[in-house]
C-alpha cells in the first residue's frame, strides 16, 4: 500500500489535513473498553499452527542505555512478544493493562525451564520526545526481576525514526487535543501485542479482546515446539 515515509511527506500531510479543523463532529462516545473475557479451554500447545502474518521490517531504535539497537536484533533468535506503550499512559485498559498482562506471562515463562531462555519481551515507546532512554530506564525498573528476564524497553532517537516502525506494525497513533488546541497527555492508539517467532515473523496479534494469558502462553509454547 501507499506509504509516505519521508519527513517532508509527514509534515506536508499533517498540514494538508489542518483544514479539517472546525468540522462539526459527531456525538461520538467511544465508551469504556472492557477487559477481555475467556470462557473456553485454550487449545493445547502444538495442537495448532499459528499463521505467518508478516515479517518485521528492520529499524534503528534506542535502548534504555541510549545505545542504538537494531529492531531485528530484538525480534530474532528468541520468541518475542512486542508491544507499544508510553510511560505516562493512564488508561487502565491501555498500556498498564498490557504490561500487567506481560508481567504475569513473564512469571509463567520463567517458571517453565523449556521457555525461560527462549523468550523475550520488547516494549517500544510511542513517544520518543518524552520517553528518553533515561525515562524508560526508570520505568522499566518496575518490571525488573531476579534472576533476570529478557524484557527490553526501547525508544527512538526522534519521531521520524519511529514512524516506519509504527507503520510496519499497523499502529496508528495520534495525540489528543484539548478544546484550545493544546496537546493533552493522552495518545490514541489501538492496543496490540505481537507474537514474533525466532525468525522474525509475526505469528499472532492480540488486541484487547484477545489478551487471554492462557492462550498467549500456549501460543508461545506452540512456537517453541516448532523448533524443538
Amino acid at each position, binding site marked *: 500500500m501507499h506509504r509516505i515515509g519521508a519527513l517532508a511527506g509527514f509534515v506536508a500531510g499533517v498540514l494538508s489535513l489542518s483544514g479539517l479543523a472546525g468540522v462539526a463532529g459527531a456525538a461520538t462516545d467511544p465508551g469504556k473498553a472492557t477487559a477481555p473475557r475467556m470462557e473456553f479451554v485454550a487449545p493445547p500447545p502444538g495442537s495448532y499452527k499459528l499463521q505467518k*502474518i508478516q515479517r518485521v521490517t528492520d529499524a534503528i531504535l534506542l535502548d534504555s542505555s541510549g545505545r542504538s539497537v537494531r529492531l531485528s536484533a530484538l525480534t530474532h533468535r528468541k520468541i518475542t512478544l512486542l508491544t507499544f506503550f508510553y510511560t505516562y499512559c493512564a488508561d487502565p485498559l491501555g498500556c498498564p493493562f498490557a504490561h500487567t498482562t506481560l508481567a504475569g506471562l513473564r512469571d509463567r515463562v520463567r517458571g517453565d525451564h523449556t521457555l525461560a531462555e527462549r523468550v523475550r519481551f520488547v516494549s517500544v515507546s510511542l513517544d520518543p*520526545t518524552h520517553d528518553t532512554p533515561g525515562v524508560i530506564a526508570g520505568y522499566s525498573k518496575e518490571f525488573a526481576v531476579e534472576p533476570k528476564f529478557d524484557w527490553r524497553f526501547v525508544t527512538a*532517537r*526522534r519521531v521520524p525514526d519511529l514512524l516506519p516502525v509504527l507503520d510496519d506494525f499497523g499502529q496508528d497513533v495520534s495525540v489528543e487535543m484539548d478544546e484550545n488546541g493544546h496537546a493533552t497527555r493522552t495518545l*490514541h492508539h489501538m492496543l496490540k501485542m505481537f507474537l514474533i517467532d525466532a525468525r522474525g515473523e509475526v505469528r499472532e496479534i492480540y488486541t484487547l479482546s484477545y489478551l487471554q494469558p492462557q492462550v498467549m502462553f500456549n501460543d508461545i509454547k506452540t512456537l517453541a515446539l516448532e523448533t524443538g
Partner: protein
Amino acid sequence: MKFDSRLILSFCIAAIMSVAIASHADETCNSPYMSGLIKGQEDFVHVWTLGVPGMGDGSDKLVTIDANPASKTYGEVIHKISVGGRGEAHHMGFTDDRKYIWAGGLDDSKIYVFDVGTSPSHPKLVKTIDNLPAKSGFIGPHTFYALPGRMLIGNLSNAADKGGVTGMAVYNNKGDFIARYDMPASVIKQVKGDGYGYDIAVNPAKNALLTSSFAGWNNYMRDLGELMKDSEAMKHFGNTMVMWNLKTMEPEQVLAVPGAPLEIRWALAAGQDWAITATALTSQLWLVSRDAQGAWQAKDVAAIGDPAKIPLPVDISISADAKGLWVNTFMDGTTRYFDLTDPEHPRQTYSKHTGSQVNMVSQSWDGRRVYVTSSLLSKWDKQGKDNEQFLRAFHWDGHELTPAFEIDFTKEQLGRPHHMKFTANPPRVASLTGASVR
C-alpha cells in the same frame, strides 16, 4: 538537513486541530468487540454500490452520504469514488483499527481497500487486491471480518466449477495473502457439511467462529426468475452452519440449518451465549446456543412473515443490547422488528413496507436510526417500476419508523446500493504518524 524531533512534534501539534483516526462500523453488526464504536450520531454512511450499464459511469462505487442532521449537507451525497469497473459490488468490512474499509466484488473477485479514517467524508481508494482466486482458489469474496492485524474473508464460490463449495481466506492488513481454510464437507458431530460459505461472526470470549452458507457463482450470478424454475439449481444452496475453533481454525461442529442461513449476529454481552441468523429460502430465525451438555445446537425459533410466500429475509441488524432485531425481507419490501428479550421465542412487534424491494438494514448503536438499501444482486433485483434503488433513513422511537431522508440512486445516476457502513468525523487529535497509509 537535520530535524529536531521535539520541534517537529511540537510544530505539528500546534499546526493542526483535527486529524487522524476513527472510522467506525455498522455499529451493532461488525466486529463490535473492537475499538472505536460510535455511540452517538454517525456523520457519514458509506454505501458500496453496484454499477449499472448506462447509468453514470456504470462503475461500482463507494458512495458517501452526509448523515448528521446538524450538517448543511445532511441527507445528500457528498462524495463518490468509482473503482473503474463493474464486478458485482456487495459487502465490505472495516479493518481492526477501523481506518480502512475492504469491499469486494462477487463477480470479479476483486477487493478494494478504501481509506476512510484519514478523511471519512472523502474516502480514498488506496489498494486493489486481485489475487484472491489465484492464491486461495476461492471466488466471490463476501464477508470481510477483521481479526487483529488481518482480514478474514468469507467467500461464496470456487474458481474451478463456480459452485457453492468454497472457504475462507486470510490476508494481513497490508494486503498480503496468508492462508486459506476449506468449509467442511465431511460429517462432523453427526451432520454432514455441504462445503458452502457466506457470513462470518466471531465471539472472542468463546474462541468461537460461526459461519453460514449460501450459494455459488452459478446461482447468484444467474437471473433469479430462471434460477427458481430450475429445480436442480435450487438444490445448490447451503443448508448448514459451522462452529469453528477460532484459534486452531478447525471446524468443530456442523449444524443443520436448512434454507440458506445468511447473516450471523452474536449476542456479545457478558452472560449471553447465543447467536442468531435468518434463513433466506425457509424464512425462519434460527438460534445457535449451547444445550445442557454445553454442545452447540441450532433451532428455528420464529417464522419471518409467511414462509410459504418466500418473503426472502436478506439482512438482519441486532440491537446493541441484543434485545431486538431488524429483519428485511426482499420480496415483500418489508422491514420488521423482532423482540429478542427471550431469544428462544422472538416476537415480531412491528413491520413497515419500506420499499418495493429492500435488502440491507443497519441501525445506529443507540437504535434511534435505521437505514435501508434496496439492491440484492444485479441479477436478482426486481424489474420495471419495482426496481427502486434507494437508501432510506428512518428515525425509530421504539414504536414507529419515521422517514428522515432518502437518496434515489437511480435519479442520482449512482447504481444499485447494497452494503452500508458508518463513520464519524475524527476527534480533536493531532497526528503522530502523519499520512502513513496501510
